[in-house]
């Protein structure tokens, strides 16, 4: 079986700053894969390359067998790739409704849209309550839910989430992780970017560990746990404090 997403020998840079060095990774259909790493490891840069926001220096990115490495950002969602961006990136001046409508920009069909909204309200009841309010007035956790719902409105084949737990309270983090697990159980294919390695490894099938723009470890969640002392490398659980990788 060919993987849904294949990244091969990808390098990317911001001007002279090399952010990714020859990384390779795969996501198979129905799988949930984590991309782990500390601040500045290159996680978001990987997603920016996949979504066409950043043009890679070299390497190949194949989605469903098609080369997408130099595609435009607007083509991404049409291919079936949706991103829940880092920092949520809610349209703050637009209402919750309008945010969701934009999520369905490429796939809009009246009846399906209505049905999808209903489904989102079941997943995230708060969105129904706040339907006509500006997105900017939502709390951080509510915005994260809106960002996820907005991405789901496009019926993605692959859902990518960039640090969905960032800046959320432990209770809200629990809720978000529960939700992501739920999406995966419904059969979604997910690429989850997280610093919270402990939590992420608890729900994913496989993981890649990025450090300084290179894949340091990869394997099943079990294997990663065995190879890496997560607590020492990460501020994984709720108890450890943030720290840098020592090399």
């Amino acid at each position: 079986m060919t993987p849904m997403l294949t990244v091969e020998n990808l390098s990317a840079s911001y001007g002279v700053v090399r952010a990714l060095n020859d990384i390779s990774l795969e996501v198979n259909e129905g799988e949930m894969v984590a991309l782990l790493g500390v601040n500045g490891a290159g996680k978001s840069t990987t997603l920016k390359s996949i979504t066409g926001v950043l043009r890679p220096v070299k390497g190949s990115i194949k989605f469903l067998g098609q080369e997408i490495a130099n595609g435009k950002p607007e083509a991404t969602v049409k291919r079936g790739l949706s991103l829940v961006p880092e920092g949520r990136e809610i349209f703050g001046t637009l209402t919750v409704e309008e945010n969701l409508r934009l999520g369905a920009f490429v796939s809009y069909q009246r009846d399906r849209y209505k049905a999808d909204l209903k489904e989102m309200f079941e997943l995230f009841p708060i969105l129904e309550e706040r339907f006509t309010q500006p997105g900017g007035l939502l709390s951080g956790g509510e915005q994260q839910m809106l960002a996820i719902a907005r991405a789901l409105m496009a019926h993605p084949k692959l859902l990518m989430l960039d640090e969905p737990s960032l800046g959320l309270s432990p209770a809200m983090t629990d809720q978000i992780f529960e939700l992501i697990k739920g999406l995966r159980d419904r059969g979604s294919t997910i690429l989850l970017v997280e610093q919270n390695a402990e939590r992420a490894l608890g729900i994913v099938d496989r993981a890649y560990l990025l450090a300084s723009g290179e894949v340091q470890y990869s394997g099943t969640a079990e294997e990663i746990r065995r190879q890496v002392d997560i607590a020492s490398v990460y501020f994984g659980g709720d108890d450890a404090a943030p720290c840098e990788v020592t090399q």
Partner: protein
Amino acid sequence: MMNLEFMINTISLGSLYALLSLGLVLVFGILKLVNFAYGEYLMIGGYGLYFSATVLHAPWWAMVVFGILAAILTSYLSELAAFRPVRNKSANALLVTSFAVSIFLQNAVLILVSPRARAVPLPPIFSQTVNIYGAVTPVRNLLIIGTTISVLILLSLLMKKTVLGLAMRAASDKFTTTRLMGVPANLVISAAFVISGLLAGISSIFWIGRSASVDPVTGAAPLLIAFIATVVGGMHSPAGAVVGGFVYGLLFNVLSITLPASMISYRDAFMFVIVVLFLLIRPEGIIKGGYTEERVG
């Protein structure tokens, strides 16, 4: 009936300034570019009026259509040919490009037409006056007010009720994220330039209507007004532009009647001083930006 006359004059001047400012702020919202070529769209609109009248002998309504189309086309083509190629470079590259477009268009007209002003024959309605309860005012002032109200209503319907408007509002909030929703960057940017050109074209009719002439630097003054009005009103929303336009019009008219005759030639200097003082107190303008959060992470 000094008061009613003053009110009508102020509202009509404010309306014209609001239209001008709106066209500038729409492009700024999406590209974060103060388009210094904006005044030239108005100027080309003026030449559209001039040529349709003198060469084509068009009736007044065809002149209006022709002038507006000329402004829209110039705006659209300038985006396509000049702004699009440098869009990904830097904000400064865009800004410099807008100066280049401005100078190019001025010189093109200077060489192809004439450096001298051309008289634009306008329908008599532009020079007639009416008497409303004793207040004497040019008919074109009422036309400006009516046109502005209609334009504002149509534009807000477009922005609020259509998917294109939704995409444009999203793009002025978070451009890259909007693209990730599948909205083509070129679509929203072209749309912004087309609407900007439309507003320049409509403003052109009334701007030219006051002097009944057009020359290669006709665009300079309206650009300056639009720029200052948007800064005063707030660069981050169309509402700011409209409010800024009206406030600027009010300020202009108040100074016009309060300054002694010997000082009237310093009116612009007074305006700038007041604007600068205001911006010291409130640098973000009258209307602040939306609810947009600071970025996290």
